[in-house]
């Protein structure tokens, strides 16, 4: 009987626990605390933290991880059982004599854990564009169409991405890794995941955690920079009322933006197409059921899968490294520069234009919809309680989403 118990104990997971795993349990605990008790981006941080906890438990049937020859780990490995089909062997093509011979197989069975399959949504770049479908369905581009010059604020707020690229490179990261870290400054989680999965998948967990953590800290990070770069007189500038925007304008906007962005940055197609498809569905007014799905079921289901998949990449072996600390620091640098870029561009606009812009709305150029716009509004009301900046700030805010997607496309076309 004792032997039976000992045999059973040898099958349990206790023997696989390491001190690094215990540290990661604490990290996951902190993330869960921030999300649940403090309300920091709970929709994403809860699944990410839960995934991180699961990644550092000796699970079976969840996700398969293998140590590669270069010392890194790769997740989502499948075991495929297949039968060669008769007469299916193909010799290498004459044009490429070095290519390996191929053979057609009949797949009988594919074995993998639950997340070996689900995480293909990230590996194959499916989840971020599909989340953009929901984002598009949730976004009203009306304020941007009514005041299109705020697009420049969204563009200027991408300054942090490129500045951080430079800093990350100086700190020893490769160009691909630096671009993936820089995109944190765009404050756009799906885009950060999309880009880092393509350019630096080994940093995906740290980048996603940094991006979503800082997005939740926008109300703490941005106000000091906003106050530092603006005068009291600038903060109380009242802006002209936005003109009403017709449905036709919104529909043309969705199609034209998609075409312009694809023509200029084809690598951003997946994100831009889905964003504008979601928005077109929303604005056309005849696809209410589809909009409902995009705004609710699709985005919610994918958020659960995306969050947990990203969390599952936070294995102790990968995450507990000095690189993670560097990414955390560089992330806040990226955010700060992006905020500053938007504010300074608004100030420059005031110098060049007779129609003044409240520089506080410049900080909203860092995507993070709609929180960054709300921060601009709240900060403006601190100095003039009757100044309503929210809708004005939504212009650069949604422009930031497009700007970050374009920047990601640029990084992809340049580096992949």
């Amino acid at each position: 009987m004792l032997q039976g118990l000992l045999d059973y104990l040898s099958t349990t997971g206790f023997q696989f626990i390491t001190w690094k795993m215990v540290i990661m349990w604490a990290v996951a605990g902190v993330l869960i605390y921030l999300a649940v008790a403090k309300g920091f981006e709970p929709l994403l941080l809860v699944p990410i933290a839960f995934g991180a906890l699961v990644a550092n438990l000796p699970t079976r049937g969840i996700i398969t991880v293998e140590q590669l020859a270069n010392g890194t780990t790769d997740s989502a490995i499948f075991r495929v059982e297949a039968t060669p089909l008769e007469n299916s062997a193909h010799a290498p093509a004459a044009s490429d004599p070095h290519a390996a011979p191929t053979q057609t197989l009949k797949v009988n069975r594919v074995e993998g854990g639950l997340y070996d399959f689900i995480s293909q949504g990230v590996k194959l770049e499916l989840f971020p564009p599909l989340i953009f479908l929901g984002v598009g369905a949730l976004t009203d581009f009306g304020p941007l169409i009514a005041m299109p010059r705020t697009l420049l604020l969204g563009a200027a707020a991408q300054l942090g991405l490129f500045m951080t690229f430079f800093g990350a490179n100086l700190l020893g990261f490769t160009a691909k890794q630096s671009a993936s870290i820089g995109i944190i400054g765009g404050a756009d989680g799906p885009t950060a995941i999309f880009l880092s999965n393509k350019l630096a998948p080994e940093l995906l967990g740290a980048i996603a955690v940094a991006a979503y953590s800082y997005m939740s800290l926008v109300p703490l990070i941005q106000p000091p920079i906003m106050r530092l770069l603006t005068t009291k007189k600038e903060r109380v500038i009242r802006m002209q009322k936005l003109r009403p925007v017709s449905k036709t304008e919104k529909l043309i906007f969705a199609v034209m933006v998609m075409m312009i962005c694809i023509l200029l940055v084809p690598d951003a197609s997946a994100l831009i197409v889905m964003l504008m498809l979601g928005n077109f569905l929303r604005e056309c007014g005849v696809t209410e059921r589809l909009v409902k799905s995009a705004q609710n079921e699709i985005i919610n289901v994918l958020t659960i899968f995306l969050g947990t998949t990203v969390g599952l990449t936070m294995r102790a072996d990968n995450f507990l490294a000095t690189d993670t600390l560097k990414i955390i620091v560089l992330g806040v640098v990226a955010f700060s520069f992006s905020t500053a870029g938007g504010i300074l561009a608004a100030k420059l606009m005031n110098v060049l234009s007779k129609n003044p812009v409240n520089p506080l709305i410049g900080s909203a150029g860092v995507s993070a919809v709609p929180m960054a716009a709300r921060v601009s509004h709240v900060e403006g009301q601190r100095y003039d309680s009757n100044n309503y900046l929210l809708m004005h700030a939504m212009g650069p805010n949604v422009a930031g989403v497009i700007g970050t997607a374009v920047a990601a496309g640029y990084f992809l076309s340049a580096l992949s």
Partner: protein
Amino acid sequence: MATHLILSPPLATLPDYPSVGESVLFQLNGLIVVFLALGSIWGMLELMGVIFRRSKPAVTPPASAAATSPAAAPTPASTPACAVPPEIIAVISAAVHVATAGQPHRIAAIVPANAQLDWAREGRRTIFASHKTR
């Protein structure tokens, strides 16, 4: 070198560890691309705005479109086809009066909620409410 980097797409040739000069030019290129894309959209929107403002017919607001505070209740004629019974209008007007603490206010319209949109609206509200401004 600088001209080469800005004018042609040699971006794929950026080494893993670029020099400071290469890195700065890479960033400059990126900012130009972003400004070009968003600037093009700006131009397109300005053009669209001009066209739509020109083609928009002058609209004169109907005299009975809304009721004005302090007697804020809209007249029955202001509601389409008298869809909302007068007693409901009175109740809503009283509620608005209480909610605004007697401040001057104006009820522009009383429209039945569109049940088709409720789920979408609730989803939007939930997602927006999850981003807490502290």
